């Protein structure tokens, strides 16, 4: 592969603005790369590696992390491995710690970044997305013209589909008093169903404050509001919650792909919801 092919196919900017300028000035398809675990895998999906890459690994701003602050700030280049090792322990953050620790495999976790996980359009099974959704994370963006913007993660999921050049610079999320969980059905390499849960109880032990996000089932991860609305005020009984998930599964639009048909993703979802609530219950004891 290394013979008779173009050189200077990778730019190595040192700042966010420089990277955006390169992206804006390019007359050929030019894309940012972070951990490169999606981009380099392109040929196995019959997608060629884009002709020009803008490497983000030299940009110091994207490597700024503050795990001890509240809100916690993760620069876009934080790898899954770094997140799994560095997040403070705490039931509220357990969803993200598990998502980062269980995704992919150890070698990939050392490379794949949170920025890449959020920005890759067409990858429905990103583990960090539902975990960050139930943490009410916001996404920090840099736009052409030296503009900066911070979006709620759900808004960002719609934003990233619009054409235009931007960089994700990081994510931010506050600590909270809820208990969280993250469960998934792995299948070869990508999971086929993911549930992230974050739940707060009232004095009588009923669900008062609930966020539940589903990944890998639909085209994009999303908060399952239909479930949240019905479950609020109930006891967090894993079996009952699994049954509720079964009842409400018609509110989802499952996708079929080579790794699993849509019906299968929906079929395993109640068991995932049950397991997520069982994790929460175990944490409560």
């Amino acid at each position: 592969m290394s013979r008779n092919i173009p050189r200077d196919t990778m730019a190595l900017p040192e700042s966010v603005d420089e990277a955006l300028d390169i992206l804006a000035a390019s007359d050929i398809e030019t894309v940012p790369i972070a951990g490169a675990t999606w981009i380099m895998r392109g040929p196995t999906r019959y997608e060629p590696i884009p002709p020009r890459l803008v490497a983000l690994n030299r940009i110091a701003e994207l490597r700024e992390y503050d795990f001890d602050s509240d809100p916690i700030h993760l620069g876009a280049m934080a790898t899954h491995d770094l997140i799994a090792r560095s997040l403070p322990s705490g039931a509220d953050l357990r969803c993200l710690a598990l998502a980062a620790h269980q995704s992919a495999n150890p070698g990939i976790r050392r490379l794949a970044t949170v920025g890449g996980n959020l920005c890759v359009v067409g990858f429905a099974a990103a583990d960090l997305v539902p975990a960050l959704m139930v943490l009410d994370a916001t996404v920090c963006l840099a736009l052409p013209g030296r503009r900066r913007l911070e979006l709620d993660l759900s808004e960002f999921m719609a934003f990233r589909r619009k054409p235009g050049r931007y960089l994700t610079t990081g994510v931010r999320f506050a600590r909270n008093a809820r208990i969280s969980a993250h469960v998934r059905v792995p299948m070869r390499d990508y999971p086929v169903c993911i549930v992230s849960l974050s739940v707060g109880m009232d004095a009588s032990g009923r669900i008062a404050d609930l966020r539940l996000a589903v990944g890998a089932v639909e085209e994009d991860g999303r908060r399952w509001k239909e479930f949240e609305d019905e479950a609020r005020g109930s006891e967090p009984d894993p079996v009952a919650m699994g049954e509720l998930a079964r009842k409400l599964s018609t509110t989802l639009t499952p996708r079929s792909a080579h790794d699993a048909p849509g019906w299968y993703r929906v079929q395993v979802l109640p068991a995932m919801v049950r397991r997520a609530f069982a994790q929460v219950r175990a944490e409560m004891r």
Partner: protein
Amino acid sequence: MDVQFFVNGEERTFGGDQRTPLLDVLRGDFRLTGTKSVCRGGFCGACTVLIDGEPVPSCQRPVGLLEGAEITTIEGMAPVGELNLVQQAFLDHDVVQCGMCFPGMVITLTHFLGSNPMPGRAEIKEALAGNMCRCTGYERIVDAVLSICPTEQAEDQPPVPEVSER
């Protein structure tokens, strides 16, 4: 633009396409064919090398990202003509079958034992989550690794399977 890095302690320069996976540079340009090319998708671990001391799949590393990096391939895991502890254990336990997965296995496990000198069976298996083996069924690999670990593994041995009486 040329990319300069170190492979097994030797300075190397690559002047081709910076998007080229390190795997292809190692095998095609430097003739270090111990690193195996199997899935080319970050899934099987056969192409694992150490980059700045961390085991990662070389098929997922565009070489342009590696300016100044220190890369260790299976050829650099022990002096020529010698085996490292993990390699020797694999030989002693007659673990290797087709061998495609083993360069990656050796790199992953050598790194793992560096920070976990007394692992249990389950920990070894977890460390191997990114290294697929189609031949061995893993158990003998784990046995070989446990054989070179200091004790305290006894209680972590798998239970002897019960033979049901019919």
